[in-house]
């Protein structure tokens, strides 16, 4: 990855909806170059997708419950943790899976409509997997900051309107 690609990635990581024309001007390159660079990075799966960061608690009654589950597993010979992780991340309700250092092995994030739904997934799907030794489930009570964004941030410009 070269410096220009890194610069582009940093820009769209912050705002995936930037127009190609804006990116081109910010970086001082042509729009064609921008387009090609993005296509290349998409093809190489450096850019995996684009998403929005949404505060679901605002303007909707549709609650979503997120739990982070510490999972202890027995690694499989030859494939280590990868096979177990795959068994877990293929469930669509699983939003993230990380291999961790420390007292447990996998950190699994689950999203469901209700606490009961998440609980059902843990007891019926996750704990029953052969390699899973134990699970500890933590429900998220409130999101303050997610992916670098503060949920209640006051974005107002506090500077005086004209200054020398």
């Amino acid at each position, binding site marked *: 990855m070269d410096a220009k690609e890194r610069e582009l990635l940093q820009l769209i990581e912050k705002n995936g909806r930037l127009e190609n024309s*804006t990116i081109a*001007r*910010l970086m001082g390159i042509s729009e064609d170059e921008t387009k090609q660079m993005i296509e290349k990075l998409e093809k190489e799966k450096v850019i995996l997708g684009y998403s929005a960061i949404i505060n679901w608690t605002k303007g909707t009654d549709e609650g979503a419950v997120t739990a982070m589950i510490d999972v202890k597993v027995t690694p499989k010979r030859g494939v280590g943790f990868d096979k177990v992780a795959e068994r877990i991340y293929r469930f669509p309700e699983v939003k993230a899976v990380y291999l961790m250092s420390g007292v447990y092995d996998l950190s699994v994030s689950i999203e469901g409509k209700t606490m009961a739904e998440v609980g059902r997934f843990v007891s019926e799907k996750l704990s029953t997997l052969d390699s899973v030794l134990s699970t500890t489930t933590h429900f998220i009570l409130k999101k303050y900051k997610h992916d670098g964004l503060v949920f209640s941030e006051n974005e107002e*410009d506090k500077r005086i*309107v*004209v*200054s*020398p």
Partner: protein
Amino acid sequence: MITEQRSKYLSDSVESIQPSGIRRFFDLASSMENVISLGVGEPDFVTPWNVIEASYHSLEQGYTAYTANAGLLELRKEITRYMRRRFGVTYNAENEMVVTVGASQAIDIALRAVVNPGEEVIVVEPSFVSYAPTVTLAGGVPVPVHTYSKNDFKLQPEHIEEAVTEKTKAILLCSPNNPTGTVLSKTDLQKIAQVVEKHDLLVISDEIYAELTYDEPYTSFPSVGNMRERTILISGFSKAFAMTGWRLGFACGPKDILQAMLKIHQYTMMCAPTMAQHAALEALVNGQKDVIRMKESYRQRRSLVTHALEEMGLSCHIPGGAFYVFPSIKSTGLSSEEFAEQLLLKEQVAVVPGSVFGESGEGHIRCSYATSIAKLEEAMKRIKRFIENRE
């Protein structure tokens, strides 16, 4: 010009200076809705959290008393290390440095320390609005030397020569410049240094924007030839570390001059705010990564704005530093003040007319690009529409 009746108690010197031309635009823009301001002369970043947190911590620990007049020794030592590392200039923290209330106060006490009544100080224009009045208040006579768009607003040594008289004491330089964004290269500075030496002038070098240069490595004036002995270097934390409201700057220079400045500082200010000094210490020790992050963002936005201005036919040199562009609006046939006022009324975009920065700023406007990308794009759209509707 204030027209109400003046008090008979006012001094002649304060009567002789005009209120800043920026004031009128501030009042006008403040009274309007939906204004996008490109008129702000400060970063759009909030001070990095570690710096704010360090200040909290100092308050919790009870550091609420005065510091040494020249500032915390620990901070001065860190400034020494920083200036050496970043700009290759070395000053003794013990006696060649004073921590001030912003770079503005440093300029004030520098002028008061060196100017005798009636002595002339060359002010390179267009310039920051406070230079000439500060010279006047120090008892000196500001002598403008103009710079021109045909030279990318670079100071021409021969223009200094033309302005020098036997009363000339000093020259006030600012690179990168507010409002033009122009950066003087090492070669430019060497040529200026020759004239300075020839006429035995003192240089007050305002290097507050030194961290914000985008094209070539910065050259600090005292690092040129033997200029160190005749330069008062002014800098601070406002622009590079996004700390304008903390009001913290510093001056470095030869011991005898700095000790004279310290004398004024100790009687008129005592010391810079203690909590801000603790914040500044953290900024110097752990802040360079934030400076780089913010600078990168300014560089991108400079590119965005200069391209947009070029496309709408407002010619503009590519400013090497600070966060201002200074395009010419002469093609519209309007004065800079008319342009700024009409743009504000018709399209709600605030810019600063070049004329407030001195006579040679006429025909230009200062646009600050220290504003969000979305706002910059909207502002450029509005300026384009403003120009097209005039044609």
